[in-house]
């Protein structure tokens, strides 16, 4: 476990940087985290992050296929928003645990 400072708040994160308590998350924090990995967070990014958080709340395993069918963005678009890790990077920025699905 580790602690990180984002937007003036100390949050507990896993060794890989995923939030331990999704409730710690807010948009300001997401923006700072995104900047860290070279992503400038747009409204579209935020829409995806919020969708992921909602899905996480329901306890559903997240897949890029589900995001692709959410009507927010297609899979190609998702790759463009979060290059090199459509589900991993987005989950991290959404303040939810590391995804556990294989698709």
């Amino acid at each position, binding site marked *: 476990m580790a602690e990180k400072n984002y937007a003036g708040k100390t949050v507990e994160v896993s060794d890989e940087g995923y939030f331990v308590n999704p409730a710690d998350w807010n948009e300001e924090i997401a923006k700072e985290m995104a900047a860290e990995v070279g992503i400038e967070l747009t409204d579209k990014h935020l829409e995806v992050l919020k969708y992921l958080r909602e899905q996480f709340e329901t306890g559903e395993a997240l897949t890029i296929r589900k995001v*692709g069918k959410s009507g927010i963005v297609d899979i*190609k678009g998702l*790759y463009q928003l979060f290059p090199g890790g459509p589900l*991993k990077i987005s989950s991290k920025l959404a303040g939810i645990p590391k995804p556990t699905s294989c698709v």
Partner: protein
Amino acid sequence: MSEHAETPLKKVLVICAKGSLEDVYAALVMANGAVMEGIEAKLFFTFFGLDGITKKRMNKLHTATLGNPAMRMPGGLQFPSLLGVLPGVESGVSSMMRKEMDALDMPPVDEFLEMITAGGGEVFACKLAVDMFKLKKEDLSDEVKDIITIGQFYEMAGGENTQIIFT
């Protein structure tokens, strides 16, 4: 002793040479998984594996009910070989498997191929096998980038931290 340095995988080339449901999906899951991890992925279909990218066949793949010792009845009892011989049984079992997979968000083959190429993965067919089965480019999924020779395949395998996976 030298320091152990972690060098992440950069590229995978996955070869699918068999056309059963599980063989094709193994290749698809590995290629898609690589793309999702930011690893460059190239997927190569040859011999019976070509069924996995042949438009007419790819969404109707079967799993063998004969000669498959791991095949079980729902509930875990051994699947009797004699049952597997009956017409329609393999179809039924295979469509049940596809349904189970869909429930886990494993898409049908055509959609899976689209997911892989959407992430920048590339799909190829083996020239020798395409010629042998008398297939044409138009018989193959639109996601197939090219029909290539084994030499071209190896040319793609260059670079540090590249792995070739034969399913």
